[in-house]
């Protein structure tokens, strides 16, 4: 197995699997968030469940974090190796002639999304951890909606969110379909898979953008 783990194909498979896992998570995340626009009560209920359910908190959440870490650590490791594979660069290189920009710049879209994750963690996860474990506040199953909407009050944060989701869309546009190729799926169903993954790459980030804009434009009026 040691040969396997160090092989380029295995590393790519790790990228693909962790990526697919994150894609799944994204769908779940989008669904819950969408409820914040439709029904604050549902949103609060689901958020509370996610925040206090032991399985979610102590099993799923660490797996998720591990998935994110693996995906980006491996991504950066591969990028370094790939850079070394061409020690002298071309004077003239027309990458656009044979491959789309998104496929060639996963590291850029990926790093932007990673930077965004930092902010996002700070905004919600750090806040949650502090609220629950450091400040040891009592459970309040109704606070989530207001807290979320409040976050989108500043214009700058909304802009950052929107930009990040555009880049996430680009990342998914290539990455989601690409993970199937890495897993060895390239057959008559591939065009259908590609259509689905591209639709996904547009729709899911659009949902997040919509939510951010919606909350920014519909702030909770403090009475």
């Amino acid at each position, binding site marked *: *197995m040691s*040969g*396997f783990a*160090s*092989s*380029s*194909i*295995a*590393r*790519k*498979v790790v990228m693909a699997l962790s990526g697919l896992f994150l894609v799944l998570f994204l769908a779940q995340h989008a669904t819950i968030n969408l409820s914040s626009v439709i029904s604050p009560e549902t949103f609060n209920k689901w958020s509370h469940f996610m925040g206090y359910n032991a399985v979610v908190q102590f099993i799923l959440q660490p797996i998720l974090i591990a998935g994110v870490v693996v995906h980006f650590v491996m991504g950066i490791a*591969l990028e370094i*190796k*790939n*850079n*070394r*594979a*061409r*020690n*002298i*660069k*071309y*004077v*003239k*290189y*027309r*990458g656009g*002639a*044979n*491959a*789309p920009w998104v*496929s*060639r710049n*996963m590291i850029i879209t990926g790093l932007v999304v990673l930077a965004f994750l930092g902010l996002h963690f700070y905004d919600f996860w750090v806040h949650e951890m502090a609220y629950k474990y450091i400040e040891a506040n009592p459970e309040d199953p109704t606070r989530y909606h207001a807290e979320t909407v409040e976050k989108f009050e500043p214009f700058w944060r909304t802009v950052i969110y929107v930009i990040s989701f555009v880049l996430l869309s680009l990342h998914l546009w*290539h990455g989601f379909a*690409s993970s199937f*190729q*890495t*897993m*060895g*799926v*390239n*057959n008559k169903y591939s065009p259908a898979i590609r259509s689905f993954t591209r639709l996904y790459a547009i729709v899911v980030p659009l949902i997040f953008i919509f939510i951010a804009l919606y909350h920014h434009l519909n702030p909770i009026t403090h009475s």
Partner: protein
Amino acid sequence: MKLLLKIWRQKNANSKGKMVDYPISGIEGDMSFLEMLDVLNQELIEKGEDPVVFDHDCREGICGSCSLQINGEPHGPDRLITTCQLHMRKFNDGDTIVIEPFRATAFPVIKDLMIDRSAFDRIQQAGGYISVNTSGHTVDANAIPIEKDHADESFNAATCIGCGACVAACKNASAMLFTSAKVSQFALLPQGRVEATERVQNMVRQMDLEGFGNCTNTGACEVECPKGISLENIARMNREYLAATTKG
């Protein structure tokens, strides 16, 4: 037509190279790209300068020797051809043409535009064959019926000329298209299945040892491949590799 050529000149593997400008005139559209370089070289020789070194041999697109990065693309702007089949009518009077060797750490420059592609040979030596003695006393050729589709797909993979354009085009200098074509060629045939597990493991291991980059599925290799080798081969190799790993 008149052109300005910007060409990578490098005395040998150990020296540092640089781009040098060569204005050239009297180029006709009917000339192949290499014939245009022949004209330049004749001029250089007459001036007593060292001609530009580049690999070439069959000049009909099959030996896979020629390996020029022309204006940022392997084998130039045209598709499904090698450099030797590129004709000057694809360029316009007054154009500047940048000519570089295929670049990859695994393909070090030998001189000027000539590179060392022995890494490809070593990948094939690691397992790109079927272990059958060449005595001729094998079973009758028609004793192994092979589905036409599989035979055709195997042929398509086997048409790879080993030029290295896939590596040159790839932003990661990955050799996955080449290696996967060589793996697929045998994986698709019953004769080749016998050693399939070891073959893919050994060839991938050698590919990694040579220092090629990873595949990030940009598809540039497939676009630039003069023989149109399909990305399906890479997916097939990935499958083969995963299956081989589970077998141990």
